[in-house]
């Protein structure tokens, strides 16, 4: 099993398996969660502008008043690495090409030098957030194995991707294969860990916003 065979397997069957498990997991869990349903609220609603589940989905991305200064690392670190991940995944030329070959949609890319910088910034932010999870008493108290595991599973693709582009440590073939493998690991574990918040946070924010919007409170 040399490098090219490893890369070929990872790009072919490996990816099929990962995407398969990913989709299976996502649909299974989405049904499992949202099929529990909820009782209709019979109380008379109060109308208030900007108070609805839909608004909350977007507004809750901003720090509520007074919260930013209470824990700036969580917010700023969170914004940097989430936006960083999004930029890297969706605006890097090879990624766009991969998506185009998968579903035929494509869009202009950012220059790869900018994406390299973005990768470094993203990794730095993730490390800062990790240190914060270790140092801050509340975060350490709440953290279970899953938190450390999901951090690693999210960090590896960025690291291996960046190293592949920079030709560091291993030849490009192997590093590219490791990068794809780490992405596959991420895809497989996502539906069964807290990473599933990628999907459920919209539902959660909508419920929260709807319950409070019903009472005329724009949360």
């Amino acid at each position, binding site marked *: 099993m040399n490098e*090219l065979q490893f890369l*070929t397997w990872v790009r072919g069957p490996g990816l099929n398996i990962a995407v398969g498990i990913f989709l299976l997991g996502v649909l299974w869990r989405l049904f499992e969660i949202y*099929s529990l349903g909820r009782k209709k609220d019979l109380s008379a609603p109060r109308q208030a502008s900007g108070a609805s589940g839909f608004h909350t989905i977007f507004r809750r991305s901003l720090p509520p008043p007074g919260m930013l200064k209470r824990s700036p690392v969580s917010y700023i670190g969170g914004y940097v690495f989430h936006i960083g991940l999004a930029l890297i995944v969706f605006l890097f030329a090879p990624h766009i090409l991969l998506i185009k070959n998968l579903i035929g949609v494509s869009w202009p890319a950012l220059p790869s030098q900018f994406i390299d910088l973005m990768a470094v910034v993203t990794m730095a932010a993730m490390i800062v957030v990790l240190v914060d999870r270790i140092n801050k008493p509340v975060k350490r108290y709440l953290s279970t194995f899953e938190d450390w595991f999901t951090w690693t599973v999210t960090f590896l693709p960025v690291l291996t991707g960046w190293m592949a582009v920079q030709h560091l440590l291993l030849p490009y073939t192997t590093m590219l294969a490791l990068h794809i493998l780490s992405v596959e690991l991420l895809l497989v574990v996502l539906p069964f860990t807290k990473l599933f918040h990628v999907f459920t946070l919209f539902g959660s924010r909508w419920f929260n916003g709807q319950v409070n919007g019903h009472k005329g409170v724009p949360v």
Partner: protein
Amino acid sequence: MEHGDTLQERMEQNGMSRRTFIKYCASLASLMALPPSAAYAMAEALGKAKRPSVIWLPFQECTGCTESITRSHSPSIEGMIFDMISLDYQETLMAAAGHQAEEALHAAMKENYGKYVLIIDGSVATGLDGAYSCIAGRTNLESLKEAAKGAAAIIALGSCASYGGIPKANPNPTGAVAVSDIIKDKPIVNIPGCPPIPVVITGVLAQFLTFGTLPELDKLGRPKAVYGETIHDRCYRRPFYDQGKFAKTFDDEGARNGWCLFELGCKGPVTYNACATSKWNDSTSFPIESGHGCIGCSEPDFWDAGGFYKALSMPADPLKVAATAAVAGAAVGVAVSFANRAKKGAAKSAHETTTLEDLEK
């Protein structure tokens, strides 16, 4: 063929002056990226060097590598090299045939036992104990083992000898393997490529004959000086790749503008070779420059690594799996939701209205 005389004496017999010899050493030093002062050191060393014997054994090969070495773009050097070495056995080039050729081979092996360089061209068949490929009634497997015993160093020429080559492609009927799969106890230099770049062959031979050393090898046994960088790293079309400007078909506007061939299956990013710098056919061009993607011919198993025209970052086709997976996921999800609803219903029906007393334990 007298073996005793030194290279210099041989050269003089051919009417070659000392200055020509120094000029030749200077150009050889430049080829191997050695400092110019080394030219004179080489002149001394080469001058006194005994003319080593070289044995060239062809196994399952297409003679592409032989063609390549005789096309070496500086024939004068190549000619000199052939003068330098005494090529005692090369079926295509030698005049002798049949028994005489065999006798010459065994004579050379016996006489220069432990000192000759063995060049292998083509992969070694191991199916049916090597019966798939024989010369003069003897399997390549046996000839290789026998020849390797007395070899000072082995040069596996081309992807066949280095990694098994096209004969090894799936289903590999002849059980073709690389030389390094058979011989484990001799220093082997792999010079992969299909065919390998001519100047690389002469360069490696020259270094072994002048300094008696083998070049530094990477973990696939390839000289690092030549196979240290990928084609992609040295490709002149790299700026187009960085900006995502890709040719979509071989005759579209992108292709005509010389855009990157990544989408047309170019394996440049994963292939280590010097084609992009030393180029082919007397530095005229190399595959990408002529508009076709690199097929990765210096990498092991490039023949089985998906189509030459399937782009590197294009996965096989996970969508085929996506549909079934999604349906399966939905099915599991629905099943669980029914189970949950049943459980919740049961809990609701078994509900006992809490009264004040019920608050006490």
